[in-house]
């Protein structure tokens, strides 16, 4: 019991005392994960829309592929991105391994299939009259697609929230391509892993608590967005 209570009180302490290192970690985690979700969504949302709406050969297979990719272990994604970004890898010239950008890349890869799969599901379950209705009222195909997205807004924003949840909580990829460098690539999860390995359980708990507070803030913000977008 002390373990949890201690973590909780220390977590509150970190929040209140504005511990600069912890706030740095929080800020980095937030920036990296939000960037990754935005990057992934730029590709995943249009793709999910197209796959969900169009009828074509192999559609079911593609859906199965995306659903399977949800099971992708984060360390495998980390490994692949590491391979791509490492000095001798095909993208090694970019020189971004062990920078926050590498973590953004890995987390975007991780979020991409999840957001795509959830947007596909959102569009498939949506009333199929939305697109044609928009067209008969004079929408261009792009405007009709936007109407579909808007009608599915709750599910689409839930997809983005799920993507954010997946990436801000993952640790495997962030450690592998970020390196858990203090003041530079140390995120919530890599810090928790480190504290735990040092036996600093309460500090780990405190960070975990802080992470939840950040996630809560992000979800509240997205909820506000949802309420306004109609």
């Amino acid at each position, binding site marked *: 019991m002390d373990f949890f209570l201690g973590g909780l009180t220390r977590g509150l302490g970190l929040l209140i005392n504005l511990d600069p290192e912890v706030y740095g970690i929080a800020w980095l985690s937030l920036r990296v994960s939000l960037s990754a979700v935005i990057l992934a969504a730029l590709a995943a949302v249009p793709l999910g829309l197209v796959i969900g709406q169009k009828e074509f050969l192999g559609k079911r297979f593609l859906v199965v592929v995306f659903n399977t990719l949800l099971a992708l272990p984060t360390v495998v994604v980390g490994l692949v991105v590491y391979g791509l970004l490492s000095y001798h890898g095909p993208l090694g010239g970019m020189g971004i391994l062990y920078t926050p950008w590498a973590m953004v890349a890995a987390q975007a890869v991780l979020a991409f299939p999840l957001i795509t799969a959830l947007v596909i599901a959102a569009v498939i379950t949506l*009333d199929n*009259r*939305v697109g*044609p*209705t*928009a*067209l*008969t*009222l*004079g*929408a*261009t*195909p792009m*405007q009709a697609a936007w*109407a579909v997205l*808007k*009608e599915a807004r709750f599910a689409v924003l839930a997809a983005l929230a799920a993507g954010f949840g997946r990436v801000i909580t993952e640790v495997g990829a962030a450690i592998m391509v970020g390196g858990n460098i203090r003041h530079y690539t140390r995120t919530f999860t890599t810090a928790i892993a480190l504290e735990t390995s040092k036996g600093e359980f309460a500090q780990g708990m405190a960070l975990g608590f802080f992470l939840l507070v950040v996630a809560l803030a992000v979800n509240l913000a997205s909820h506000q967005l949802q309420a306004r977008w*109609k």
Partner: protein
Amino acid sequence: MSQALFSLRGVVKRFDQREALNLERLDLEAGVITVVEGPNGAGKTTLLSILALITPPDQGRLFFDGQDLPNSGSQLTAWRRQITLVAQQAYLFDTSVEKNVAYGLRLRGLERAQREDRVGEALAQVGLAEFGPRRAKRLSGGEMQRVALARALVLRPRALLLDEPFANLDPASALVFERVLGELSGQGCTVVLVSHALEQAHRVAQRVVYLRGGRLAPDAGQGPSA
């Protein structure tokens, strides 16, 4: 006989090899209310969807206002903006009634003040003047169909396509549809109304076309039942 707004030549539409529609020749005159009758599965909805430029035919040609229309492509939007369809159970967007009605005007880039005027007018026309701020999804079935009608009327289309407008309507809403159709016939709007044989449809029809098994029945093209 006035000029045809729609002309179909050899239009065929199939679903999974089955022929849903096969129209050798059909002309729909401008400014006329045409009622298309036929039993369930006759191809009426398919015909409207082709006329609305939503479903491309598999074969044949469709002329609108004398122009041979392409099956797809970006120019189609400009044509589509002259035509609108009120579906049998129209889909209303999950927002307010006024935003539903204003949707097509926004797409056409109308200013806010102008939009509000025309939306107000259209809602009054269907007897829903006070309904603007209401949430569309919370309305009754008849009210929803009237909102869909207002959303079409507000566009002042050259052609208005109505799919079974009187099916499942409460009497008050049916009267609204009948009155609006009467008003439209004096305004040069071309109306194509689909229905299984119903008195109300006959009352407003200036021409009745019979569809059976996707084809025009032999007595097609006759004048109104009167």
